[in-house]
């Protein structure tokens, strides 16, 4: 295992493993979030959020998730810098459009934009729920259990607010573009691919990306249009 994490494939392996882990997280996140649009009283989502906030397994996973994000982000900049150095004199004219997809060539930019979104997103919700608190989170009673009214915090960000609604739609689309390449690419990097699975993985990647982009975009649009 010597020099594994400094070797090109070792570094990519880390990107791939953390990427797969983050994509799994996104699915869980999206599942809970979609509860927002299936119950306008907010009880369903509040129950889901309360379950996630009090579940010991989630508590264990939270720091691991943070670490996953950190490694994925730091390594991406490191790898991109190394890759950039591999061509000190650039081409005068280069046309990659016929040979590769736009999102595959711009993973760093897409990832960086998702990171900007993530910072805003953490400020909007995570900071208020976990650290500072907010009057919008005034406790509510769902089925005899006292819990924070997370639904109120989320819905009040989007209702009547074009800026945040469209920002979250953009975030969903950017994430979709990032994972449309990231999904199959991470299987390729850990060696779980061949000529038969190439098309299958790329199709699943496409489906996954659409689910993520549409799923996350639907929520702010629902609040913006319905209320």
């Amino acid at each position, binding site marked *: 295992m010597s*020099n594994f994490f400094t070797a090109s494939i070792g*570094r990519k392996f880390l990107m791939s493993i953390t990427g797969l882990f983050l994509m799994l997280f996104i699915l869980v996140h999206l599942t809970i979030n979609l509860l927002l649009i299936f119950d306008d009283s907010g009880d369903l989502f509040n129950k889901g959020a309360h379950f996630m906030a009090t579940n010991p397994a989630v508590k264990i996973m939270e720091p691991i998730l943070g670490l996953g994000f950190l490694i994925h982000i730091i390594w991406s900049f490191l790898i991109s810098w190394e890759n950039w*150095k*591999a061509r000190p004199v650039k081409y005068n*004219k280069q046309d990659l459009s016929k040979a590769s997809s736009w999102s595959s*060539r711009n*993973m760093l930019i897409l990832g960086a934009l998702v990171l900007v979104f993530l910072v805003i997103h953490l400020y909007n919700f995570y900071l208020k729920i976990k650290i500072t608190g907010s009057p919008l989170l005034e406790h509510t009673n769902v089925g005899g259990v006292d819990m924070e009214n997370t639904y109120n915090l989320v819905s009040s960000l989007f209702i009547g607010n074009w800026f945040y609604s469209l920002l979250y739609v953009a975030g969903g689309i950017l994430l979709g573009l990032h994972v449309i390449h990231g999904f199959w690419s991470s299987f390729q990097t850990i060696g779980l691919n*061949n000529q038969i699975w190439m098309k299958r993985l790329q199709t699943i990647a496409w489906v996954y990306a659409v689910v993520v982009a549409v799923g996350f975009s639907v929520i702010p649009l629902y609040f913006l249009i319905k209320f």
Partner: protein
Amino acid sequence: MADKILKKLYIKVWRQNNAQDKGRFETYEIENVSTGSSFLEMMDILNNNLIEKGIDPVAFDHDCREGICGICSMFINGRPHGPDSAVTTCQLHMRKFNDGDTITVEPWRAAAFPVIKDLVVDRTAFDKILQAGGFVSVNTGGVPDGNAILISRDDAEEAMDAAACIGCGACVAACKNSSAMLFVAAKVSHLAKLPQGRIEAKARARNMVARMDELGFGGCTNTGACEAECPKSISISHIARLNREYLVAKFSE
């Protein structure tokens, strides 16, 4: 049917006297080029004209002129081996261009492929990667019986597809990261798929990847540009195999 004639073309070509020279673009005009001529023949005509004018001809690599040797490295109009798929530069024909076009011709650009002169680059980095493990250490005795080691047709075919690599470097030239992964993957794959190659498979994957990293090639981000520009259309599924071979070799270390 006679080939069409391109009355005038402008060739914007990279000129660099030696490895130390900073280099620059020069644009030369060339007249009456047959669309039936290959790109290299057009370069021959251009050089002929330059010599007549007392200008140093453009240095470029060329050898077999039938798409096998892989030496004719030219980055034409933004793509390795120009605007055609699955061809080397010698197989690219002037019918792919229009009258009055300005054609930009550059050398392969990569830290691991330094320019020697004009369009000629030093590709010994590929040889060094091969020397790190791209071979089978065997005692060459008598010819063994053909059926002594059975190999499935699918494995043999896949090994042959990988063995089609001519080491031209288009994968490195096309890659946004100047990665040599497709080359290394092809060289690891064509041995990994055959029983004779399995014996040294782990050391081969470890050593060739280590050498590739050392020589300053970038990492693979799976854009697939290499496969699209490869004159032999070698699949990036071989890169997945290289990753697998390498990870298994590393984890069992």
